[in-house]
């Protein structure tokens, strides 16, 4: 019998969001678990261990994206669970939570098991299912959330649509509370956004595109927070786009007090931190998003909210669409962009390079926070942290590596990335799930990277 598989990380900047340590050290993985961590010291590694010289690169828990669209079943022309998880691994994500707006919708225990089965077969990044809260995401009838939770759904959402009826919203929050699952709201009051394509303002006016006011997001967020004040469910507002929403969330968290504030959270996505509605000029469908890109004021407010902890989850809202679909006219092209393979670099650009937060905090918002939101620790012990005896889901990040985003080189099946051609800094160079290497950067393709020399 051969000796157990072992990985010995040397000279890494180890960032663990749980213990809040950020020190150079060594880490030893044996089989699928973290065997030992030595901050500022050395681990006792077996002779056969594969040595990974990190040369100061950041070693952190595997990144977790709580908001992706894998499109399977029904949208396999855009993405599959296989290509989506490979895309995740290439971007440094070891875990993704997929949204239920597939066709058919993920609103039964059977569909949850289908996705988990496909994800197991794909054998790349972990996939957890966010189930639909209402049947077919229509907001009319409760979905079988208890059996879905039992089958593995880690949270619930009607993402793509907000739950319009306040009465239904209250029922959903009650059930989520009883099941101890988070509810993720796509905040969009359809009566305010209906037909909207671009942020309400001068770009929409000049281009003659239907306006989408911030109110559409803020009104629903405010309503939900009001409802949840009594129900105390774990409430999460997805992809916030409006600076006003950030302020609403900040006030609500302050009202709840320090010990309850974590019951509500908000999420940011890279495009809402880097692009404004000006990107829609020339009817650029590559910048057509739901919720829409807004203004520099909103970007500034969202960054403030990330800096002060109001927004404490980061996601990608990875939304693949085919080239043909995005080549339609602005009104009929679908909303959304892909993000898994460039999110880390874009967050580095928007948040770290801009001085909003530092690396340890960025790591926390991309690992521990989404793991807590979805209660992933219940499924995989130690996920989102670096814990001795916990799962060895790890990402090695070269924070200095300069590279150019090339959508054509993505593992994702889709190419709808408005950041194509952008020069960025910061890249995942090694992605490990349960001790298995999912992605290792090809050293030939990127000669200027930090050394990830391996030896034995």
């Amino acid at each position, binding site marked *: 019998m051969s000796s157990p598989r072992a990985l010995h990380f040397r000279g890494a900047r180890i960032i663990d969001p749980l213990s809040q340590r950020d020190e150079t050290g060594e880490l030893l993985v044996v089989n699928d678990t973290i065997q030992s961590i030595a901050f500022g010291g050395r681990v006792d590694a077996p002779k056969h261990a594969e040595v990974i010289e990190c040369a100061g690169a950041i070693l952190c828990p595997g990144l977790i994206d709580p908001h992706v669209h894998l499109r399977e079943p029904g949208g396999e022309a855009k993405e599959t669970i296989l290509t989506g998880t490979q895309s995740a691994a290439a971007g440094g994500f070891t875990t993704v939570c997929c949204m239920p707006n597939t066709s058919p919708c993920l609103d039964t225990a059977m569909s949850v098991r289908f996705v988990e089965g496909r994800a197991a077969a794909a054998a790349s990044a972990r996939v957890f299912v966010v189930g639909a809260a209402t049947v077919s995401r229509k907001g009319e009838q409760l979905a079988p959330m208890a059996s879905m939770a039992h089958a593995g759904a880690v949270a619930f959402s009607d993402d793509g649509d907000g739950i319009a009826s306040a009465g239904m919203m209250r029922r959903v929050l009650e059930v989520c509370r009883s099941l101890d699952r988070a509810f993720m709201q796509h905040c969009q009051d359809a009566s305010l956004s209906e037909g909207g394509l671009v942020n309400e303002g001068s770009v929409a006016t000049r281009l003659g595109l239907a306006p989408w006011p911030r109110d559409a997001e803020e009104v629903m967020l405010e309503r939900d927070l009001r409802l949840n004040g009594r129900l105390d469910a774990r409430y999460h507002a997805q992809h916030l786009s409006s600076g006003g929403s950030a302020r609403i969330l900040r006030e609500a968290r302050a009202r709840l007090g320090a010990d309850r504030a974590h019951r509500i959270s908000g999420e940011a996505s890279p495009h809402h931190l880097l692009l404004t509605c000006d990107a829609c000029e020339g*009817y*650029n469908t590559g910048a057509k998003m739901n919720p829409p890109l807004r203004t520099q004021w909103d970007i500034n407010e969202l960054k403030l909210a990330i800096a002060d902890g109001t927004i404490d989850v980061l996601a990608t809202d990875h939304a693949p669409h085919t080239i043909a679909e995005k*080549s339609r006219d602005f009104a009929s092209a679908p909303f959304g962009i892909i993000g898994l393979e460039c999110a880390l670099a874009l967050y580095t650009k928007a948040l770290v390079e801009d001085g909003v937060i530092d690396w340890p905090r960025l790591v926390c918002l991309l690992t521990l926070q989404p793991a807590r939101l979805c209660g992933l620790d219940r499924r995989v012990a130690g996920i989102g942290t670096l814990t001795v005896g916990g799962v060895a889901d790890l990402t090695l990040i070269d924070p200095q590596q300069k590279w150019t985003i090339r959508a054509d080189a993505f593992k994702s099946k889709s190419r709808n990335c408005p950041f194509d051609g952008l020069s960025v800094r910061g890249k995942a160079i090694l992605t490990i799930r349960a001790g298995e290497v999912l992605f290792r950067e090809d050293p030939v393709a990127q000669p200027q990277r930090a050394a990830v020399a391996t030896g034995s």
Partner: protein
Amino acid sequence: MARSASQTTQALRDIGPDLRLPFAARLRLPLLNRFAAASGIRIPPLRLWATVSRVTRPSIIQRSFGPDFLALEGVCATELTSILDDAERLLPCAVGDAPAARVLEGKLIANLFFEDSTRTRVSFEIAARRLGAEVVNLSASGSSASKGESLVDTSRNIEAMGVDCLVVRCAISGGAALVAANVRCAVVNAGDGRHEHPTQGLLDLLTLRRHLGNLRGKRVAIVGDIANSRVARSTTHGLVALGAQVVAVGPPALVPSSWGALVSGENISISHDMDSIIGEIDAIIMLRIQTERAADRGVAPDYRFAYGLTEARRRRLRPDALILHPGPMNRGVEIDDAVADDAFSSVIFEQVSAGVAVRMAILSRVCGRR
């Protein structure tokens, strides 16, 4: 214009490539321009007088191409004046009082109307025929043909049959630009969704100029469904470029607060009180409530009371003030019967004649000079 069989075959082959190139060509975020420049990607601007950069496909149909005419936004005063001067000279020809030089002899112009229209289509057709061009009409209103995808496919098919100019009307904002980015022949925007209707803007300018002279400093009110009106956008761009002051009048649901940002500068204002401005303007342009663009939901049943051009309001206009309407009218809603019919104060039918003249000027510009 004879083309060999092999050229035609090539042209037909050229119609159906995948949509990769147009998509790439539309990734033109201003934010990313410099990165694109650094990496050698050409990101064409899409605004819009003068030549729009085409998708780079191998040049198969050997022909020189004229500029497109897609919008009045960004057209400078010199250029506008030059077009209006041309149109003014062509006015007698437009109404049949004088023969026009047949500068489009041998040209083929296709009217591609994905949205219903009578007057605009006929006006373009008459303009083209008076200049000697052949005209084909294609009406394809209805939901499936209005989608962007078939808009491009249809345009490429028609182009491959050897037309020199596509006159495009569609319900999609940006539709004409989308067509222009995907074909090689000239494209004239005959109204795209809520965006622009530049020849209508020009005919308003021509009509106003003929009555008011130089438009610098003149005050023009545009009343009604500003939010959904492509005419309001084109006319405002043109008026402001020529130095006029434009006041947008209507209920808040139909006059977006961001209207003032349509162009930079101080020449645009907004009023929700028609009676406060009615006595101070040189001309008033009444717009139709566009029920097909769902504008009626923001309109109260007392619209006429607040914003209709009634007899009483007409009496408060300056005696020399002009009343324009791009038509078709909702009589008894935005304009009273008697006001519309009053031939002495109304120049509405003169607008229609001016429409043929400006379209003659535009068509000869985009495909008349080789």
